[in-house]
């Protein structure tokens, strides 16, 4: 299955992925409109320190602890993609407790949010990957 892979060797710490993510999931058609005066809460987040940086987003694990631990059944695996049903989620954060990558996080409206590979938004394919200027984030099939 196609997954997102992050190679910190090429990450520039430019944070474009975060903005592209926030825009793709904003439901708006123009980035300036979507993000002007907005503190973004993207589903992919950069860690950086001492010249090293890398983006972290859901790894879509094959044995997803978040899905197995979800108390409501809001998280599920659909064709290898871990998706969240925002209607079912009650914001208990058991998934936050479970995710070893810290890649699932509270959204601005109480329930949790996570990378769904932009399959559910109008972008249709991972916006972070498309917008990465240095191929530090790639979306591909390995092995």
């Amino acid at each position, binding site marked *: 299955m196609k997954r997102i892979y992050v190679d910190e060797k090429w*990450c520039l710490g430019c*944070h474009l992925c975060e*903005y592209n993510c926030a825009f793709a999931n904003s439901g708006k058609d123009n980035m*300036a409109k979507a993000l*002007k005066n907005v503190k973004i809460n993207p589903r992919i987040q950069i860690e950086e320190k001492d010249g090293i940086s890398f983006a972290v987003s859901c790894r879509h694990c094959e044995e997803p602890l978040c899905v197995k631990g979800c108390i409501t059944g809001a998280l599920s695996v659909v064709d290898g993609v871990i998706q969240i049903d925002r209607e079912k989620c009650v914001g208990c954060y058991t998934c936050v407790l479970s995710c070893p990558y810290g890649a699932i996080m509270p959204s601005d409206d109480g329930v949790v949010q996570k990378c769904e590979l932009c399959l559910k938004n109008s972008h249709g394919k991972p916006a972070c990957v498309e917008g990465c200027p*240095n*191929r530090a984030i790639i979306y591909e099939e390995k092995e």
Partner: protein
Amino acid sequence: MAIDFLYPEYEVVRDKDKCIGCRVCERQCSNEVHSYDEDLDCMVSENANCVCCHRCVALCPTRALKIVKTNHTFKENANWKGEHISEIYRQAGTGGVLLSSMGNPKDYPIYWDKMLINASQVTNPSIDPLREPMETRVFLGSKPEKVEFNSKGEIKNNLTPQLKLDIPIMFSAMSYGSISYNAHESLARAAEELGTYYNTGEGGLHKDFYKYGSHTIVQVASGRFGVHKDYLNAGAAIEIKMGQGAKPGIGGHLPGIKVGDDISKTRMIPEGSDAISPAPHHDIYSIEDLRQLVYSLKEASDYKKPVIVKIAAVHNVAAIASGIARGGADIIAIDGYRGGTGAAPTRIRDNVGIPIELALASVDQRLREEGIRNKVSIVVGGSIRSSADIVKAIALGADAVYIGTSALLALGCHLCRSCQQGKCNWGIATQREDLVRRLNPDIGYKRLVNLLTAWNHEIKEIMGGMGINSIESLRGNRLMLRGIGLTEKELLILGIKHAGE
């Protein structure tokens, strides 16, 4: 001092309606042009630092940025232009030589743009490269004067070593030091995939790149940096650098600050020391000395590698080339005055040397007149900007071309001509780790491959239009060119007729 104040040449224009304050521009600008002002709660710019490299413009996700040339002006004067005045202020302030990089940007004639290419109509057919074979393979090297036969009457292979190019384009010498590791890796991998060659320049060959040796030309320059026996035998050919189009007559200077661990090892000089290539080779003060070096290198490489001698296009280039051809070189590379550099004194870059088009035409003609054109191959460089330039160069008489600037452009260079500062925002002309990282060779090499593949397609199209299906038949085929807007003298030197003739 107030007198030294120069109004910034470029201004950053930020569309406040579009700026979302993501600060990508700030993070990406090594010149520290952009910053976030907390009091104003917006991004601000320090225009004086801007070199107009467009990194910020290219990465701004909302397209909120553009760079404009300032309309601030000195009092208009057709003679004393703003640049003259500013440069005098700078030199009066510092007492220093002005430095620049990349090729001569001045408004001299560009002869490529004054030549037009022929095409077939009616009397002979054009050839469709999509339907018929169209060959752009070239072998560089000395051709035998006489076919020899063995006792059975079969032809003996008496060819000296040749360089096989699947496309008539090579990457010209750019040292590791002047450009980054990732730029070198991109060039090496592209050369391998394209079936052509890249050139180490005078910086030696990094140990990681020996594996691309069969697609590498190793250079021996006046500083002899990184030259040893394994190095000479690592490549497919050896190039003696006598001169460079951007700075004929002078050497090179890599500041110690760029000589980090890797470069120090590759160049075989102490870390942090300046790498200074002398103006001449101190063992070559005349043509017979060059001949000795050519044969020393051939000895060292067991006569298995062709030797290239690279010279800058200067006034007497035809006679020099003739001497080199007779001096045992297999290939002569000529670098025109538009050729790029990582750093050169501005005055030299802008005022020394001659156009490659004229140099090529006179060298090719001279060697033919002496009957020695086939003893050597001719490779030209110094601002080959498109496939059309290549077709014209080959029709004038070149066997192949070297591209440097075009290759760097493919890698992202925006010709801001600030290489000498070592802060290249595109990760090319820099050794700063955070900046080098910006050039991912996976992307870079592919872009080079794309560019040359595209150019090769275009060359084939143009050749097909002329009814030529192999590049040998284009070489020196000056009837395929016509001049436009050229004087009799220029036409004579170029050896072409005027359009309409």
